């Protein structure tokens, strides 16, 4: 992800915001889609969708941490 300092801050922060938003929303959608696909393969309808939803939430959290990490300051 982009380093925290530098010019053109409006553009950079818009990238950061959309990266954070999309990793929250997209991970949940992606997890549910993966779970849905697995459920259709194994015919176990609600199981993998729920697992995918939970994992999507955690994956979104992980994505946010990864996106804002360069801006926290303690990362070399």
């Amino acid at each position, binding site marked *: 992800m982009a380093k925290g300092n530098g010019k053109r801050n409006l553009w950079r922060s818009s990238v950061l915001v959309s990266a954070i938003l999309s990793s929250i929303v997209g991970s949940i959608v992606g*997890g549910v889609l993966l779970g849905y696909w697995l459920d259709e393969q194994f015919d176990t309808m609600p199981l993998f969708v729920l697992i995918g939803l939970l994992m*999507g939430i955690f*994956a979104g959290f992980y994505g946010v941490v990864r996106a804002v990490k360069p801006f926290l300051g303690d990362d070399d």
Partner: protein
Amino acid sequence: MNNVHEDLTLTWTIGGFDLHFSFSVIFMTTIAALIVAIFSIVGARKLAMRPTGLQNFIEWVMDFSRYIITSNMAWEKGGKFIVLAYTLLFYIFVANMLGIPFELATETDHYVLWNSPTSDPVLTLTMAAFVIILTHIYGFRMRGAKEYFADYFRPSPILLPFKLIEEVSNFLTLGLRLFGNIFAKELVTVMIVTLAFAGTVGFVLAWIPLAPWLAFSIFLGALQAFIFAMLSMVYMAHKVESH
């Protein structure tokens, strides 16, 4: 004006599969690609030490692409992606701008003839898929199979399913963000223009929302082109650089 975004599609059946070709997407992508090619070729044809006019502009776009890359990864590794970043940035910008001055559709069937090609999810998701596939190919080639696969288990093997979900979500959001923004832009523009033909008062007053909205559309198109190129390079840096 209900079916504003209906596409004129040509269907071609090969071995039981239906391939749908959307006329407006084919036509508009060709025009956008031609504009980018003509600007780039003419701008770089007569290179001068003191750049003037078009060469100045092309150099500025090139510098901007270089800035996008260097804010994500080391130049030694990312330098080879400058053509990719330049093409993505320039092409998406031109494609977003094409629908702003006017849009064309047939009167009776509402088949779209002229709009921004990026308002079609098939096109944006295809571009996102190619970018994601490219990041995997370059990650594999530049760091080797061992490092590439080890990356899925770092810093801890527990993260493996999250990394797999992240790949899917990167692909989805990269394509759908561009599509959603441009599609919404075109929809609101068409709604305001429809308002203008509702009556005399609407015809006189429609420019009040239309002018700021078109100005905002230009900003939106530029911003989305920048975000697409920037995030492509972010994903590329995740795959190409060692952690």
